Each structure stands twice: as C-alpha cells, then as structure tokens.
C-alpha cells in the first residue's frame, strides 16, 4: 500500500479532535481525528497500516483544537454522521453527539451542552463567534447546518480561548474551505416526510485560472417545509422557509494567507399557534387540552405567530509568517435582525395595516482576534492572543430588550509541554467588558452603565498510555456578564406567557468545570467516555414570584431574575463495537444532574438519554459501502420542577432506523425516526404542554461529490 500524505494539511497537526472515524469511511477520505502532536508519532502509522482495503492516497486532515486546554474533551460530527443529519436543523444534527440535546420551542430548536444553552454556550462559525439574539430560548442558532463540513462540541468552561459566555461549552462550526488543487464540490438534496420538508444545497470551489495561489468557493442552500404533524394530527403553523449563501476568496503563498468571506442566513419560521395564550386562564384551558385542536388544517404557508431572522457575517483572515513567528488575525462584522409577529393583528385598523412586528431587534457586532505563535522548537510551546468586540443592539416596537452597547477586550496566553506520550498545558486570560444601556421612560432617556473585569484559567493534561488509548483531564473556568434582559426585562414574554422582571444589581456568573475523559480506538472497538462537574457562582435564573401580576389581560405568572450557586454534573459514553466483520453494535448515552440555587432541578434540562443500535455492513470498500440497521432510543422520565404548569413528561421509547450507502461519487442516507408513531413529549421542549413531538418521520439525503 502506498501512503501518500498530503503535506500541506500536515501543517495543521498538533490538532485534531476526539471523534473517531467510523470504519465504513472509505480510506481515501479517512478522517483521522486523533490528537496528534508532531512529536507523538504513534497513532499515525497505526491508522495507515489498518486492515482496510488498499488505497493509493491517504489525505490526512488536521484540525486545530478549539478548546482552551489539551485536557478538554472535544466531540465532533463529520462525514457520514453529518451527512445523515442534513435536511434538519443545526440542533438536530448535534443531537447525535452524546451529552448534547436540543432545547425546543415547538419546532424551533437550539443546542444545549452540559445542560446549558443560549448565552452560556458560545457558537463559533469559521472562527467568528456568532452574536445573535440569544436571550430567548425560542431563538435558534443563526447558522445553516448544510454549510458545515464539521461540527465540534467542547464541553465545559472555555473562557480562556473564547471569553465571556463559554460556561456550558463551545460549539464550533467549520464550513468547507477553498480548494487550491482543483475544482471540487458537493450537491446535497434532502426530503423529509414530516412537513414535508425539502432542501437542496450546493458547494463549489476551485482555483482561479492563471492566478497562482488564488482560489474561490461558494455555497447556496434552500429549505422549505409545511406544517409538521404528530401521531394524531397537525402541529398548526410549524411551516418553515430557510436559505443561506456564502462566498469565499482566498490567496495562499508560502508566508501569507489571506481569506475574505461573506455569509448570509435567513429564516422564516412559524411558531406553534396552539401554544399562544392570552392570559393565565387561557393557559389553563390550553393545558387542559394538551394537544392542538383536531380541526387544525395542514398548511404549506407560514402564518402568525412567526419570526423572521437574517444574519450576515463578513470575515477577513490573515495568516502571516513574520520573523519566524506565525501571526493570525481575524476581523469580523455581523448583523443580526430578528422580527417577531404575534398571533393576531392590532384591533385598530390603521395599526393593523402597518403589519409591524411586535418585536424588532438589530444587533451589530464587530470583532477582532489576533494570535501569535513564536513556533518554538522542542517540547515547549507558547501561544498568546487578544480579542475585542463592540456590539450595539437597537429595537423598534416593544422594548423587551433595551438598547445597549457592549464593548470588551481580552488577552490570553497558553503554555504547553509536549512529550512522547503526554502533554500538559496551562492557560490564563483577562477580560474587561462594559455595558451601556439606554431606556426610554416616558419623555426621558435613562442611561445605565457597568463594567466587569474577569480572569479565566485552564489547566489540562493528556496521556497516551498506549497508541489506542487517550486519557484527558482538565480544570477550566468560564464567566458571563449578565445580559440586558436579565438586568432590565420588565414585561410580558409572550412565548412563555409570563411576566419577567430583571434586576440591575446582578453580577457576573463564574464557573469552574472539572472533567476527565478517555477514548480507546482499535479496529474492533471505539469507545469514548467522560465525566464532568460544573459549579456556577451567581448563576442567574428566573424564580417564580409569590403572587401573579395583574394586567389588562388578567393575571399572569410573574418571575424575577435572581442569582445563586448552581451545580451541574454528568457523564456520557459512546461506543462502536465490531461484533463480526459485517455487524457492528453502536450505543451512546448521557446522564445529567442540574440543580439551581434552591437545590431544585433546572427547568427543561433532561436527566439523560440512551441510544443503541445494530448495523449490518455487507459492503465495506473504499468506493462502495453499505450499512443499515435499527435504532432504539430511551428518554427517561423527567424530574418535576417547582411551579411547573403540568406534570413532568413520562419516559419514552422511540424506534428508528438508519441506512447509508456510498457509490462514488454518490452517497445516500435514509433515516426513520419515531417509526412506531408514538405520542411522546420531550422534557426539553418548552411547548410540551401544548403539543406532543413529531410523529413518524422518514428522511432521504442524496449527495454527489465532485
């Protein structure tokens, strides 16, 4: 077997994630996500002399680890697993990673890592931290999963590398890059029976002719669907329209790499209309029904209540070799516009004719990220960098979130030691963040300002006692300043039929995550497990007030933002066992325990999940492969939380199936979810009171590579 390793990509080594290649991947695209260090050579030959069919070319793609420490666990989704998830939302794709669940608001879903989400989870897309209106749990991540080449989840505090907000973890989205070698691309078409939802995405890239070192790339994706359904009927107003495009221009020379790109994501999404309630007695009526009315008719169009989102990101990246040091600079500009319409128009015909959204926010953010690496030879490595951000939020209409300007600056440094079988590192960071808020109170505009200074640290250690076993452990911190909503909310939050009141004296949250993980990769067994505990000081949460608030619409439950200590802990495990050459057993599971300051469970955080399945693999060649098998999923019963509207969901068993075939250059994936068409309620769905989850859903993904 001739192994020809593409040297250009080896430059990124010292990188990689814990995700393990599934043995069905054709050798030619073997995605070897082992934690290589240039000095630790052991795993590389092992992969090359595997028992796979001979290949003429092995392309080794390295990835820069995105975590704050070598001791942190990183889990990734790419290749076949990611392709099978195309056609769904980003959060749905990430659910395949143990420990990650979706916090749902009907059909709107956002990822939850280690029980935390929204402003406690940083989302980094192509190096830029996505800044959206993440204050609402009913706001999905403003990114199109069809662009992603790889999704990586880092669990636990990661503020050293990612600054404020990285308490629960970090989600890294890597889109496909530019191809300098030749023209390449991928088309993906998706169809889902629930909706139905159809989608198509195209990615093309290649060098610019007669311009040495220049390459371009672009993507275009569209997705549309009608109302979804559950076992007994339609989920009214859950239709969806979504689109994205991106363009990339790149120039690479020996000492300088320049990349400019722009991406746009837009979404028009209906919100389950049977969940919209006018007041507490309406809520009780809706709770008593528990399901949408039988009369709800299926519709293709998106109706009210609905939300429209547009997110633009521009990036400029420079990587230069100056005086033997490697300098990386990344500048980003983002604009996020979110508009939400209530169920019904104003009674006044003049206002109704304007058709203005109830909520309308524009968030503009500029960021920079500068990193220096002196490229020390030897066992010691050192890196340092600085990051800055300036952000402005402006509203039209109801001021649920006031106008604000947020500015931050941070500097970090990581020192690491790499030996043959182990590495260790220590990182530190300092951040300064300011927040200015302007609120209109009648004729007056009131200005409020605050400043937070916060240190962060990360310590980690990695050990390879043998070539197929990696052990890691880390202790890392995270922090988050309170948001404008937590400080100044005062009004009705329609999505949850509650009045929320902020507290301008709230301080910043500080977290420390301790974790330990292991991964073992051999030809017959791939197993990864981790345990972690996260303590959050001054954890901000909504505590129910003793009495409801009276409004012109009647009484509403009222909640105030308070802070206290919170503890979250958990464990997860995933395994692939090769039983015989043509049969594999796959399983993954996670356990989670989350307690707020009152030692009560945190609402909508599920207690765990277990998945298992068998794969029949009659064909396992580099150009042609086939696998298919059943899946079963168990969602354990949910703990009751105080002041919940309805009893916690019962346990659920779900049946599914997955099949995947490659016939170069085509790939086909077929998935069946909830095949028994069970009626079940998801513990992490905030609209579970009003509607069960989707029923049977078959999806087909076809992909062609060039």
């Amino acid at each position, binding site marked *: 077997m001739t192994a020809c390793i593409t040297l250009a990509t080896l430059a990124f080594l010292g990188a990689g994630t814990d995700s393990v290649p599934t043995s069905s991947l054709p050798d030619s695209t073997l995605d070897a996500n082992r934690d290589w260090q240039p000095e630790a050579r052991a795993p590389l030959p092992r992969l090359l002399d595997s028992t796979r069919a001979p290949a003429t070319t092995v392309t080794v793609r390295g990835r820069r680890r995105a975590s704050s420490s070598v001791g942190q666990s990183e889990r990734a989704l790419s290749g076949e697993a990611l392709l099978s998830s195309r056609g769904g939302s980003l959060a749905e794709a990430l659910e395949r990673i143990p420990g990650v669940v979706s916090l749902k608001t009907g059909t709107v879903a956002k990822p939850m890592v280690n029980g935390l989400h929204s402003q406690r989870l940083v989302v980094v897309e192509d190096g830029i931290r996505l800044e959206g209106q993440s204050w609402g749990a009913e706001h999905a991540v403003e990114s199109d999963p069809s662009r992603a080449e790889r999704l990586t989840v880092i669990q636990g505090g990661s503020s050293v590398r990612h600054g404020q907000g990285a308490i629960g973890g970090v989600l890294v989205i890597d889109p496909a890059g530019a191809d300098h070698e030749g023209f390449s691309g991928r088309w993906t078409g998706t169809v889902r029976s629930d909706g139905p939802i159809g989608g198509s995405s195209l990615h093309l890239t290649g060098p610019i002719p007669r311009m040495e070192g220049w390459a371009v790339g672009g993507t275009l994706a569209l997705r549309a669907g009608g109302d979804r359904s559950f076992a007994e009927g339609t989920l009214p107003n859950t239709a969806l329209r979504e689109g994205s495009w991106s363009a990339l221009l790149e120039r690479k020379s020996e000492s300088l790499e320049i990349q400019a790109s722009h991406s746009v994501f837009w979404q028009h999404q209906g919100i389950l209309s049977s969940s919209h309630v006018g*007041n507490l007695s309406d809520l009780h009526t809706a709770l008593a029904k528990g399901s949408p009315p039988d009369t709800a008719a299926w519709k293709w169009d998106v109706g009210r209540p609905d939300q429209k989102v547009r997110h633009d990101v521009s990036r400029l990246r420079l990587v230069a070799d100056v005086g033997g040091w490697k300098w990386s600079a990344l*500048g980003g500009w983002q604009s996020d516009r979110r508009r939400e319409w209530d169920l*019904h128009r104003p009674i006044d015909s003049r*206002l109704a004719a304007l058709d203005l959204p109830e909520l309308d926010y524009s968030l503009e953010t500029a960021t920079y990220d500068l990193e220096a690496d002196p490229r020390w030879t030897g066992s010691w490595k050192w890196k340092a960098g600085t990051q800055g951000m300036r952000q402005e939020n402006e*509203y*039209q209409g109801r001021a649920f979130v006031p106008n604000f300007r947020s500015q931050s600056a941070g500097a970090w440094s990581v020192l690491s030691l790499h030996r043959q079988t182990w590495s260790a590192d220590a990182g530190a960071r300092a951040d300064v963040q300011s927040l200015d808020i302007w609120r209109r109170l009648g004729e007056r505009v009131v200005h409020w300002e605050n400043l937070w200074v916060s240190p962060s640290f990360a310590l980690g250690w990695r050990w390879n006692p043998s070539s197929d076993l990696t052990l890691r452990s880390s202790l890392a911190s995270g922090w988050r300043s309170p948001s404008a909503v937590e400080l100044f909310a005062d009004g009705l939050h329609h999505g949850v039929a509650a*009045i929320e009141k902020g507290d301008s004296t709230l301080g910043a949250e500080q977290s420390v995550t301790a974790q330990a993980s292991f991964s073992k990769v051999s030809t017959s067994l791939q197993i990864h497990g981790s345990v972690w505990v996260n303590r959050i000081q001054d954890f901000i949460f909504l505590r129910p007030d003793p009495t409801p608030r*009276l*409004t012109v619409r*009647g009484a509403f439950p009222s909640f105030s933002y308070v802070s206290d200590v919170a503890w979250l802990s958990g464990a997860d495990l995933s395994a692939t066992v090769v039983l015989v050459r043509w049969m594999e057993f796959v399983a993954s599971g996670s356990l989670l325990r989350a307690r707020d300051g009152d030692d009560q469970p945190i609402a909508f955080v599920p207690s765990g999940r277990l998945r298992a399945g068998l794969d029949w693999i009659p064909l396992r060649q580099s150009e042609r492969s086939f696998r298919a098998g059943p899946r079963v999923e168990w969602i354990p019963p949910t703990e009751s939380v105080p002041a919940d509207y309805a009893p916690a969901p019962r346990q659920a068993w779900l049946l599914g199936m997955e099949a995947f075939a490659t016939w170069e250059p085509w790939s086909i994936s077929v998935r069946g979810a909830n095949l028994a068409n069970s009626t079940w309620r998801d513990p992490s769905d905030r609209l579970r009171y009003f509607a069960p989850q989707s029923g049977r859903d078959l999806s087909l993904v076809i992909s062609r590579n060039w």
Partner: protein
Amino acid sequence: MKTKTTLVGLTAAALLWSCDDSSVESPVEDHEHESITTVQLKLANRALASDTLTLTFLDADGNGGAKPLQPALGRLKSGAVYDATVRFLDQSNPSDIHDLNEEIGGSESDDHRIFWTTGSKLNASVVDLDSKGFLLGLRATLTTLATGTDSLRINLRHLPGIKTATSKITDGETDADVAFPLEVTAP
C-alpha cells in the same frame, strides 16, 4: 466608572470603529403598537336616571412597569335593571387616544366576542349582535338579583375566523380580561 468604561471602549474600538453619536443612545418612543390600557364599564339604572356609574381599569404603561389602577367598588341597587356598556381604549400615547370600540363594533365584530360573567347576585345578558347576527357584547343588561358583593368579569376574546353562535369563553385568545368588584345594596 466613566473613565474605565471609556478606556475599555477605546481598547475594543481601536481596531474596529468608533461612532458614539449612534441612535442606540436615543431609543424611540413606540406608538405604532397596540396596547389596550383602559377598560371602562358604564352602568345606568333604567328606572332611576340619577343612578349611573363609570368604573375604570387603567394600566397606562402597559404590561409590566407600574401597577395598574384597579376599578373602584361599584354600588348597585337591588331589584334594578342596568343598561351596561364597555369601552376599550389605547391611551398609551396621551396625545393620540384610540377608541377600540370603533373596530370591535365595526370591521372586527365578526372576529371578537365579549363575555360577561357574574356571580349569584347579578345576571348579565348581552344585547348587541355582530354583522352575522352572533352575540357581540359591547352592550348588555345587568340585573341585580340579591344583596351582597359580587364581581363582573369582562373578557374580550379574539376569535379569528372561528366565531360561531355557540362560541365559548375558552375559545380563541384573550385580548382583555378585567374583573369589576360590585356590591348590591338594598335601595
């Protein structure tokens, strides 16, 4: 604090941009969104012209913020029949008050219904109809049955395209829901 904030601003903006005269610092007043601030109940004794009452629920700054002004206790005479009317106003902009009755009783009447609910001391029956001949509820007849305290709940419901002759208080969505405390005394 001000100096520190400025320093952070300068550091962060050094590589970005600076524009401190931004509109972010002057949030706009919103007068293009509807907020029902006022529910007004008027009662007139059919037999006694001097026996009239106006009771008002007022939440000038909408949901949240300052607490609403609750209606005062209304005193009614026993054995009497009152002509009752209810008015819904948007007074969030004092210089441009919207009388929502115009639409509720006009172009929007087929999509709305006002339910009048009482305890045992009173009886309320709606007297006005929408364009399709279904009950509307901006006007009602209130009869006092016995002495004692009672409450009259006025619930304005939005029934878009689903209003029928048998629409119930649990159908559709609440636009306004206010309880007026009443006391029936011997004349």
